[in-house]
């Protein structure tokens, strides 16, 4: 197993954000974690990569325990991630953002004399090419459109040749067509490189088109798991999504006629 998660728990002041989550993620698998707002998805992601320390539970990468390690150590073991709210270096160009990750990967962070802007330039441009950002390589990250920032984050996350990619809402802020395209791109990349992916997404079209497996989180608990088709037809899941904006997508994904009126 690439990733094995057991009994993951996180409480905030007595309220359980994540209340005991178990799952496995195999090599090359693309696993979607879906659920309504506040279900605990981001909290899960943050516990997997060490941004938040779980109250209980274990996270194993290829059998090695990750809980207790800081994010930087987990990254060195081959985990890359993107954030729900993008985190990039605003005072650097797009290429430099990727170069920074490459410099770290090659352990040159403390070099005092070489020009950072020239290190691993080619590799950075290749990664940007991959995510369709090569033409914006010299623009400052601070002026990019949100969707483009998400692409930069993807390139950054791929820089250390990860075995596992965690993507928290990789297509938020994009137009529907762009979403499908980006997720297709991601799927192609990770299949070619045998990277396992865990991602969250509110757009059910994206989820059902690309996930090999889907897990549904509600109030901190996994309530359903299975193939996209099985999850889509699960009554429980439909109930959870009832009344949220996502029901629209769900219905559309099922190919049924929808009553309009959603905001």
């Amino acid at each position: 197993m690439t990733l094995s998660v057991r009994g993951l728990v996180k409480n905030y002041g007595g309220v359980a954000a994540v209340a005991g989550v178990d799952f496995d993620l195999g090599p090359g698998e693309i696993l979607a974690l879906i659920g309504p707002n506040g279900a605990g998805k981001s909290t899960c992601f943050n516990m997997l990569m060490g941004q938040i320390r779980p109250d209980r539970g274990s996270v194993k990468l290829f059998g090695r325990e990750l809980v207790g390690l800081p994010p930087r150590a987990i990254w060195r073991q081959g985990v890359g991630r993107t954030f729900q709210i993008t985190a990039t270096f605003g005072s650097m160009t797009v290429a430099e953002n990727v170069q920074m990750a490459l410099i770290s990967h090659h352990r040159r962070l403390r070099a005092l004399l070489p020009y950072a802007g020239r290190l691993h330039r080619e590799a950075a441009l290749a990664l940007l090419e991959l995510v369709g950002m090569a033409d914006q390589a010299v623009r400052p990250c601070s002026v990019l459109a949100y969707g483009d920032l998400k692409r930069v984050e993807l390139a950054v996350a791929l820089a250390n040749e990860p075995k596992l990619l965690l993507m928290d809402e990789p297509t938020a802020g994009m137009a529907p067509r762009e979403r499908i395209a980006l997720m297709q791109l991601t799927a192609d990349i990770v299949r070619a490189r045998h990277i396992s992916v865990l991602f969250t997404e509110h757009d059910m079209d994206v989820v059902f088109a690309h996930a090999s497996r889907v897990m549904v989180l509600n109030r901190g608990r996994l309530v359903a798991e299975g193939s996209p088709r099985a999850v889509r037809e699960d009554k429980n899941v439909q109930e959870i999504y009832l009344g949220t904006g996502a029901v629209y997508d769900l219905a559309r994904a099922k190919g049924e006629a929808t009553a309009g009126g959603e905001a």
Partner: protein
Amino acid sequence: MDFVVIQSLNGLATASTLFLVASGLSIIFGVTRVVNFAHGSFYMLGAYIAYTLVSRLGGSVAGFWGSIALAAAAVASLGAAMETTLLRRVYKAPELLQLLATFGVVLIVQDLVLVIWGPSDLLGPRAPGLAGAVNILGQPFPQYALFLILFGPLVYAGLWLLFHRTRWGTLVRAATQDREMVAALGVNQAWLFTSVFTLGAALAGMGGALQLPLVAVNHTMDLQSIVEAFVVVVIGGFGSVTGALLAAVIIGELNAFGIVIFPDLTLVLTFVAMAIILVVRPWGLLGKPEAAVRGGAGSIELPMRPLAPRLRLFALGVGLVLLALPLVLGNYGLSVASEVLIFALFAVSLHFIMGTGGMISFGHAAYFGLGAYGAALLMKYLMFPMLGGILFAPVVAGLGALVFGWFCVRLSGVYLAMLTLAFAQITYAIVFQWYGFTGGDNGLIGIWPAAWASSATAYYYLCLALCGGAALLLRRIAFAPFGYTLRACRDSGLRADAIGIDLATHRWLGFALGGAFAGIAGALYAFLKGSVFPDTISISTSIDGLVMVLLGGIQTLVGPIVGAATYKTLHVTMSSYTNQWQAVLGVIIIVLVIAFPEGIMGRFARTAEARTARAGDAAP
């Protein structure tokens, strides 16, 4: 036992004054997010104005207490004036520049006070009706101190009622917690800010006025009280009045007992307490995590680019002019020029920490001073030659920065800044009080350069070579992976951590490196002056560096050099034209902050960037 009681009462009396000043500072920060350096000036003005009023109105009960109240009211209206005319224009500017603007006010008030009240200390009357002593456990205890002990909590209660029982107070509390929300509620923000600032100024003015029976009114009260108030606010937590009360009591008591147990170390004791509390509780006792204060906040920094060809030529031209300076300048001019070079390196090294590293330092003078004293002491005790001293100075300063930095880099924003200040003050206190080793305030003299460098021209060239070389090296490092790593930590700690960067370690190393370079500047300064005095480590040296960096613009690497040259040149030229150069400097700083909120070079960089962006868009 009696002694303990009396001393703790003394401590409480001190605490009351500390609380008055600190609570105002804290409230102002909470609502406006402005760290008001001029708060100490309000305090000092309160004391001076009260002195004048008492001498006019007489020392009767009505005259004395009326004077105190009127002084507080006068300072309050000065505060209101400052808020409406100055601060309103800079609320949108980066927080550090607001700080700079309030520091301009400090300079102006300092000169005003000298002009109006003269340089000598003024002794006020005793408080009528409270001039005697009461008997506590068989010991006489001043009635006035007893009054202060009661007055502090009374003010606290008043503030509490104001904040919890009035609509205005509710708004203030809401604004302290969430500024946007108040704006969304449609509250007249301008009015809220003005009234809060006025209240804060009134508290400071009253605190100053109440000192009349206790101490001679003098013109060092401002910086002294602002540092104390900062310490109290930082320990209590910015924005928390209760925290300020708690911290005031802690510091008051620490002083009262410290002065008995370690009479020479009271200053150190205060700052050690602050350092410990900040390490354990990084946001003070009752404070909340604050979004990091950064020079660039509000305006995002641009990517660094190598100098454009035209600027390269310009830099070359400047270099040539600097090489040719000895042809036109006399000895005095050259020693001024050497000093400018030294401070340019000082500013560049501070910028490395503040700009590249994103760690605001209010105490960079510590490393300048460690370099200066390091070289001087090595020469004095171990007979080091000049160059040996200059070589070891960065080692001494760097080691100091390693030790202090270890604590500092764990914090961020204003708290980090205050901790750097604390360490600078500790260094200052040790140097000042360790007569046997450092000569205390007599300083170390006879620190002359080697024979070959003793002429003004030779020393100038030495400074040019070392400062220029060091500044270029730091620039190179800023463009190197290490510099980028520091900027990565500054831009997004979250992302940096998620790509394998150890934030604390790199920030720590960056802090130490900046400190080491300041040490070179310090050593050169010692040999330039032929002596070292504790004031190389004083707050005003730290602030000079801060002003230079911010004046030039924190967002560019050239900024600190331009800032240092501008500031030092203004300083030197103006002090030969007018006695009130400080005030002129203050006005200039304020005008520059309003005109160039991004610093001088920041403005140029942005214009240049816009031009290249336009050119780039136009290209096919």
